[in-house]
């Protein structure tokens, strides 16, 4: 059933994770480097070998894209400092947004917008000499997670549940779903991050009551209030800010440091990408250190050999970040108000997201709710674990999840523009999804066959203050006298929080054709093209990965043989055996330098066979050495590297199990 694994993915601003439910508990699937967190950083290495390939043999397999090697995760972080124009981070902030929306972000983040961007086109970001849309960059992160899961299962993974901030709007959700598709994943469900966290929490606690999830992550803030009742997780209210997180604290600290450096050392480093990234790294480390200790030292090497050195105490840090963390108060109070609950009526407050490690944030939550928040869960992992629980539920459930059901809400009101540029709200925020509304339209001119509808999302009264979701054109309305047609338009928000629209002219019973013009986002066709491209690359990637792995294996066996040739066992072989082994060795060396995967494999197999007796003899030598009372340590030294005595064969086990 290997093809049926549904994984849960937390596609975070700072870090991403993939998780799976094994038996009764969800667990994180680590990357090849053994770490659970995959930093959401994407870099392009130069294609020329021996170039900027500092990732070393342990980074995840290469991933070629237009002659460039794509690096994702921890290995990509080095590129942020070494070649800042070839790496990108926090791209989640750009998902589902237009170029006019992100002007503020551009001041704070080193995003480089494509120069040839046409009005109305989906945003593209430069990495090196190529440009990518935000969903494509997210897809590269997703593809890495997919690969980690495939390595874990030893088989393909094609279905996933992906989490999104609860306060994400339709365009941001659609962009996330597109990213999944581009990465070759069938996204079975988008789950809101705080809700996913509540699933992981609820699975452990199994208690009824009202829970507030305060999710303060790298780039987004969400507050959700849920009612847990016999396995039903009913969201009562949600609120948040999709551009508020640890990133904002970092940017504030960077700005202060840059001012400080200019004042103190007379250096203006604002335009020096490398220096800014060095400062950023140091500031993040300092921020993290201050969560567990009262003070920390900054020491950053600057261009020209100068150093920026400072001691920061928690007393200095806390007032600085106060304005940022206070921005979580408004949404929290609004969510409580919408839920018609007083803070004292909340039974438990659960903290999620890396920024909740900051003691001052915990204090703020405690003051808001008048109770000590629940901090037992790992705030970095709980969302992914919850996504794995939801994946398990969607897969048909297991003994522990079969009673569990998530009832989520839409975070923003859905409206349509009516006369005078006013928003008429047709589905209110905090409505349980799926939710629907039906509207009726008619024509104003005799014979009119088109009716235009403008769909909005947001809480403001005027259409221009709300987010434009899409403009629909109802086409093919049968020509009639003005006011005669009665067009029924059904708006439906599905369980992912994504809008669907259908229309029918009631008098003729004719389905009206709808042309959806998303205000921000990729068309199906664009996604399809990106998907095909990535499929092409995926095949290429796979081939490349196989070759690299085979080479690694060849090197291991060759090293073992070299060692074997120095051992007394080598002399015990017949001359023919030795000649044969050496010719097989040469064959493998030459195959290893080529790109033919099966040739390398074959040569490995042949050498393996040809040195079987050598391996046995070496084994005997080791054993007899041990019998002679030689220390096992010395005996081990005779064995090929990395082998234990019971393996007794100079071939390392395949990395893939």
């Amino acid at each position, binding site marked *: 059933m290997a093809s049926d694994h549904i994984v849960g993915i937390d596609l975070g601003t700072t870090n991403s994770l993939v998780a799976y439910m094994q038996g009764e508990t969800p667990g994180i699937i680590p990357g090849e480097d053994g770490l659970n967190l995959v930093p959401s950083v994407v870099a392009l290495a130069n294609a020329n070998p021996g170039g900027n390939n500092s990732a070393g043999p342990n980074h995840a397999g290469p991933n070629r894209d237009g002659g460039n090697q794509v690096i994702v995760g921890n290995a990509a972080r080095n590129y942020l400092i070494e070649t800042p124009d070839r790496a990108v981070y926090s791209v989640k902030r750009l998902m589902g947004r237009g170029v006019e929306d992100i002007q503020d972000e551009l001041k704070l983040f080193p995003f480089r917008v494509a120069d040839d961007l046409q009005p109305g086109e989906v945003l593209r970001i430069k990495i090196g000499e190529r440009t990518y849309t935000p969903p494509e960059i997210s897809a590269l992160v997703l593809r890495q997670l997919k690969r980690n899961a495939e390595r874990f299962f030893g088989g393909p993974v094609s279905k996933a549940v992906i989490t999104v901030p609860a306060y994400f709007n339709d365009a941001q959700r659609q962009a996330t779903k597109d990213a999944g598709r581009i990465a070759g994943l069938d996204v*079975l*469900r988008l789950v809101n991050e705080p809700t996913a966290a509540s699933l992981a929490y609820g699975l452990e606690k199994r208690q009824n009551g009202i829970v507030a999830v305060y999710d303060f992550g790298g780039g987004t803030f969400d507050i959700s209030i849920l009612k847990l*009742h*016999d396995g*039903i997780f009913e969201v009562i209210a949600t609120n948040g800010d999709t551009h508020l997180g640890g990133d904002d604290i970092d940017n504030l600290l960077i700005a202060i440091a840059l001012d400080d450096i200019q004042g103190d050392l007379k250096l203006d480093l604002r335009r020096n990408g490398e220096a800014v990234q060095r400062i950023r790294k140091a500031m993040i480390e300092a921020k993290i250190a201050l969560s567990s200790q009262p003070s920390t030292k900054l020491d950053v090497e600057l261009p020209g050999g100068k150093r920026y050195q400072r001691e920061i105490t928690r007393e200095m840090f806390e007032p600085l970040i106060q304005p940022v963390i206070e921005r979580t108060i408004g949404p929290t109070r609004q969510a409580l108000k919408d839920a018609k609950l007083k803070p004292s009526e909340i039974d438990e407050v659960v903290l999620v997201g890396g920024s909740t490690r900051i003691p001052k944030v915990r204090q703020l939550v405690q003051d808001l709710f008048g109770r000590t928040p629940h901090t037992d869960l790992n705030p970095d992992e709980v969302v992914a674990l919850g996504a794995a629980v*939801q994946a398990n*539920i*969607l*897969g*048909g459930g297991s003994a522990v999840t079969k009673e569990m*059901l*998530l*009832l989520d809400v839409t975070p923003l009101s859905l409206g349509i523009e*009516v*006369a*005078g*540029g*006013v*928003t*008429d*709200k*047709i589905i209110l925020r905090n*409505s*349980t*999804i*799926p*939710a*629907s*509304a*039906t*509207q*009726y*339209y*008619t*024509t*104003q001119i005799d014979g009119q066959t088109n*009716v*235009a*509808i403008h769909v909005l999302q947001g809480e403001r*009264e*005027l259409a221009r203050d709300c987010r434009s979701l899409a403009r629909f054109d109802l086409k093919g309305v049968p020509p009639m006298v003005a*006011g005669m047609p*009665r067009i*029924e338009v059904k708006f*439906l*928000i*599905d*369980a992912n929080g994504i809008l669907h629209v259908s229309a029918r002219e009631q008098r003729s019973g004719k389905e009206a054709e709808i042309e959806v013009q998303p205000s921000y986002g990729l068309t199906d066709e664009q996604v399809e093209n990106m998907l095909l491209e990535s499929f092409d690359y995926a095949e290429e990637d796979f081939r490349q990965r196989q070759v690299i792995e085979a080479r690694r294996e060849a090197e291991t066996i060759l090293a073992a043989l070299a060692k074997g040739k120095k051992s007394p066992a080598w002399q015990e072989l017949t001359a023919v055996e030795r000649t044969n082994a050496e010719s097989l060795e040469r064959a493998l060396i030459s195959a290893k330098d080529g790109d033919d995967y099966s040739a390398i494999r074959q040569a490995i197999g042949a050498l393996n066979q040809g040195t079987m007796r050598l391996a046995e003899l070496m084994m005997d030598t080791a054993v007899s050495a041990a019998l002679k009372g030689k220390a096992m340590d010395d005996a081990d030294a005779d064995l090929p590297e990395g082998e234990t005595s019971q393996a007794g064969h100079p071939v390392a086990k395949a990395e893939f199990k």
Partner: protein
Amino acid sequence: MTQTESKSSLIVPGEASTSCWSCGTMRATHFCSACGKVQPAVPVDYFTFFGFPRKLELDTTALEKEFYALSRRLHPDVFAQSAKQERAWSLEQSSMLNDAYRTLKDPIKRTEYLLRLEGVALEEQSKQATETARATGELKKQVVPADLLEEVFELNLHLEELRIQKKAGEDDPALLEEIGKAKLSLEEKYDALFEELRGEWKKWDAAVDKGTEEDRRKILARMLDVLNRRNYIRNLVRDVNEAMEN
């Protein structure tokens, strides 16, 4: 583009097919009691959807229990691995379930829904109607309830005075106290109107069981009147809050 109607559609009780599309046995309304498969949605009103009579005194605990039970049967999560058609039915059924629950659990929305179901047109007293009227230059229908005439007249004078003072940067505690008192009185009336509405519910529910069409029409008209007066006061309180905040 003109909207001929707003808000949710009114669906008349329809004829339900009586056997499951999948196993052929007799079925419950929304899913098959024999094989559990979701059924195509049948256009019914929200009361019928939950199997309730068209009455307004509603046991919300029972409603919630039924909502949870139906959610477990109809939610798209349950059909994630099913065929496309079943997933579409589940989406339709569960959106209807959620729409129905949202409408029925709230006493005011429930009353308004019943009025529309019974063919009574609601007055638009919303802020949005005010904005629309302002934008189009049309006069908004705004009937001041007779018992409030004097109070509203005085309050509007006070509010006008407050706006002038605020512009001039002056502060008159006596005026603020006067407005505060008026607001408190309005809020008390607002709460009393809800009790009045509940009284009408009881009459309606009784008339559903044994009453003439004429009795029911009279009750509906009275409920509409209570709702209109209530909306009027709500808007007034909002105006007061805005004037005091700005």
